[in-house]
């Protein structure tokens, strides 16, 4: 391992140091210290991206491929983790459960996610994925004394194990057939031997396993239950970090191996169409805001599959921009729920009826939420607009018309439920805004997210240039 390798690996190393440090702090029951260390770790790891960017791309051990692409997603994960960390501070403030382990689990999950995004080998993928999953399990069932988190955790446990088994079986079959666990090795073996039913079976199993993590239809059913059961910041974390990392891996897998070509493309397109339509339809009249966001997130990953189908530079760019936009919008939306539910015990403020007249009671939070919802709906002057545009362009470029059609139909349906929430928030007569304690960390996060959403929505060129450099470098 050379110095260059170490530099490239620096963000991971920082995380590797931060995790035990936070564990120690947690072991000594120092929640504030644990949170600070976790935040410091993410910030430092984020800062380490710059030196790492100077030396990429390079293969560090057979397991990890550190390239601009991996670093971009690592940065995204780290930023999202930091946002969730800060949001959680105020959220956990008066809750009964111990707070110190929360930071640890978040950090651990982020570490796993970074590893998944950087892996080009199934072994590292499995390791990263399971680190992520187990940490998530802890986060989902974190709350004390309430049934919903436990039920959600249980469902996640069983279904994640179930899908992991399917994924592992598929990987094992691939290994049996190709003799390699690295993506490149598999591609090489397949290139020489061509594909046969066993390979198709293996790929299908892998797609099913990944589809679970991305909550693609018909593997999606866990998502709303888990989002609802988990706390709002954790739900945001699952939606952004867990899904984002696995999606980054899917893109790499589709790029390196013939997973998304030929029959695989048919499967992915079918899944995309089903995901878009079912996700949006399920959200249509949903009365629980967290579930609504869960279904909306399902639909968004259906849109993202267009980028996988399109492939190439265009697909990678579209996916990278879309995921960034998606992260901002989703964290923003869950962030508002977090802020609303902060400082109280019990379930989150998630029934839509509680959002009635929010614009007049909590104008700033409502304004943020309105912006986030419009962004999710793809309205201009937000990142959501260009996100949809790039994905659509990728899909059109590749000629994936059924998926494009589903995207159009799905967007219209989607618009309905976003507008429904907005209309609800606007309902009622104006009243004096209720002064409530502001959770400054969360407010800062929301302000930043809103700023980014609008700024990159009006001037997306810098981010797109960055993405282009990253993807071309990889």
């Amino acid at each position, binding site marked *: 391992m050379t110095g260059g390798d170490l530099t490239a690996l620096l963000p991971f190393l920082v995380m590797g140091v931060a995790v035990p440090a936070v564990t120690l702090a947690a072991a000594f029951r120092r929640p504030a210290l644990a949170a600070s260390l976790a935040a410091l770790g993410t910030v430092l790891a984020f800062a380490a991206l710059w030196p790492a960017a100077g030396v990429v791309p390079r293969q560090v051990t057979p397991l990890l491929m550190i390239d601009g692409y991996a670093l971009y997603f690592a940065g995204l994960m780290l930023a999202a983790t930091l946002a969730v960390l800060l949001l959680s501070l105020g959220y956990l403030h008066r809750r009964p459960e111990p707070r110190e382990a929360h930071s640890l689990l978040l950090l651990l999950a982020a570490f796993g996610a970074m590893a998944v995004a950087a892996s080009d080998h199934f072994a590292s993928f499995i390791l990263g994925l399971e680190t992520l999953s187990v940490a998530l399990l802890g986060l989902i069932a974190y709350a004390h004394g309430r049934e919903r988190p436990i039920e959600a955790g249980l469902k996640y446990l069983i279904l994640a194990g179930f899908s992991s088994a399917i994924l592992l079986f598929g990987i094992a079959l691939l290994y049996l057939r190709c003799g390699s666990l690295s993506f490149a090795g598999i591609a090489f073996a397949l290139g020489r031997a061509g594909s046969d039913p066993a390979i198709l079976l293996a790929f299908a199993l892998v797609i099913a396993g990944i589809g679970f993590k991305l909550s693609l239809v018909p593997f999606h059913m866990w998502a709303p239950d888990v989002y609802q059961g988990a706390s709002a910041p954790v739900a945001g974390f699952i939606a952004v970090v867990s899904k984002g990392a696995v999606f980054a891996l899917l893109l790499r897998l589709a790029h390196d191996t013939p997973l998304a070509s030929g029959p695989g493309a048919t499967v992915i397109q079918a899944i995309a169409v089903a995901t878009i339509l079912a996700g949006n339809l399920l959200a249509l009249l949903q009365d629980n805001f967290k579930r609504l966001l869960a279904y909306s997130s399902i639909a968004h990953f259906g849109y993202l599959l267009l980028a996988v189908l399109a492939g190439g530079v265009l697909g990678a760019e579209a996916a990278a921009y879309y995921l960034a936009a998606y992260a901002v919008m989703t964290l923003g939306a869950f962030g508002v729920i977090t802020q609303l539910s902060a400082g109280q015990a019990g379930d989150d403020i998630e029934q839509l009826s509680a959002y009635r007249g929010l614009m007049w009671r909590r104008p700033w939070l409502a304004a943020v939420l309105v912006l986030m919802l419009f962004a999710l709906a793809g309205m201009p002057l937000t990142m959501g607009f260009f996100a949809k545009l790039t994905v659509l362009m990728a899909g059109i470029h590749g000629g994936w018309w059924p998926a494009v059609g589903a995207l159009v139909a799905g967007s219209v349906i989607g618009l*309905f439920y976003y507008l429904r929430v907005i209309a609800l928030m606007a309902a009622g007569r104006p009243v004096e805004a209720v002064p409530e304690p502001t959770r400054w960390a969360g407010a800062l996060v929301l302000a930043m997210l809103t700023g980014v959403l609008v700024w990159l929505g009006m001037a997306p060129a810098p981010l797109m240039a960055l993405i282009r450099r990253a993807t071309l470098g990889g």
Partner: protein
Amino acid sequence: MMLPWLILVPLMGGALAWAVQRAGGTAVRGVALAALAVDLALVLAVWSKALPAAGGWLADFARPWIPSLGIGLHLGLDGLSLVLILLTLVLGILAVGASWTEIGDRVGFFHFNLLWTLGGIVGVFLALDLVLFFLLWELMLVPMFFLIALWGHEDRMRAAIKFFLFTQGGGLLMLVAILALGVLAAPSAGLRRFDYFALIGHAPGGVTGWLLMLGFFLAFAVKLPAVPLHTWLPDAHTEAPTAGSVVLAGLLLKTGAYGLLRFAVPLFPAQSHAFAPVAMALGVAGILYGGMLAFAQDDAKRLVAYTSVSHLGFVLLGIYADNRLALQGVVMQMLAHGLSTGGLFMVVGAVQERLHTRDLDRLGGLWASMPRLSAAGLVLALASLGLPGLGNFVGEFLVLLGSWAAAPAFAAIGALGLVVSVVYALTLVQRTFHGPARAAAADFSFGHLAVMAVMVAGLVWFGLYPQPVFDLAGPSLGAVAGTAAP
């Protein structure tokens, strides 16, 4: 250099209007009026300094924006845009005036939304990059949504959402068509551009070309609206507050017609040519169907709303008749409809504000207590029925004249709209102003009267000496005419 300011001034004015909300409604309205007046002055300044270039372009502004996607900030002003922008700003000022007393709560936010809608509309009339055009096209929906959803009448939420869904549904199809056109027209991905002039003349042939043309057409047909995609309009217009209805009917619908004129037809000349009979049939259907439904309504605003369907049917008919006569008629019809229907919405809105009802069965005999309001309503209704001497007649007659040359049968059936329009316009007059006095309230104030005077003066001017408009729009239409004439 001035062109971006034409869009930015209303946007900034809107933000400022919101910011001064604490200073009271008058300050907000003053800011809004000032912003629109400044914008109007800017337009006139651009116009006065412009040297007509080839194709009638008066001013141009181009900057790179997102080079990696081939999207630029390209704005251009020609006679057609100029005419419509002038209409936008004048109607905008009048709409601010007309809602002076109607809007009592959240005045700042109301004017923010109003000015942002207007800014978006101005942008739509200027944009020459297709993605930018789409962006602005969507942008004007959001504040309009709030205008309806927050300050509308009884069923406002449903109407606002319906309005948004319809327009967005059409808009997304157009986005797909825009992107596909850009992708297909580019020799390589690196050269992909969405600039109007880069794409014109690059329409693909075959089924693809047809589908892309339909994508554009559907988006604009929803907005126009063309039967059978019109059903959002009666709800939205009825539920919107007065200024919202005025902007919707007077301006937003025009963006649909503008889109057809600027994009759908010139980008796809061959397909539009082949499609013309269908589009003209839809136009004629709109004229008659809209008129028939207008007649049958019991809600005054709904009645006026359906008249828009009928009037815009003439626009659709004229656009696809596609000769200079019809196209000039289309431009005139757009302007005159903006004034006459906008004015009718103001009248009905004033009635609603005073009597808290739009139900025609509960209105009637208003002439006795409100002669000035009623007289204004009568004149606007007459404009609406196409009385010669007022602008709508010139528009409708030229459209019919042009379409007679293209397709006499459509023109003849469309001319039946002249009969239908009398039926609904007089029904409105009868059930509102005539008959036994069922309700009474204060007459128009001086301010309202001044607004009406501007409208009527404009209609008379268009009706008796429309030539300045024709001279202005002529060069732009020259580029459209003949590209698709059957």
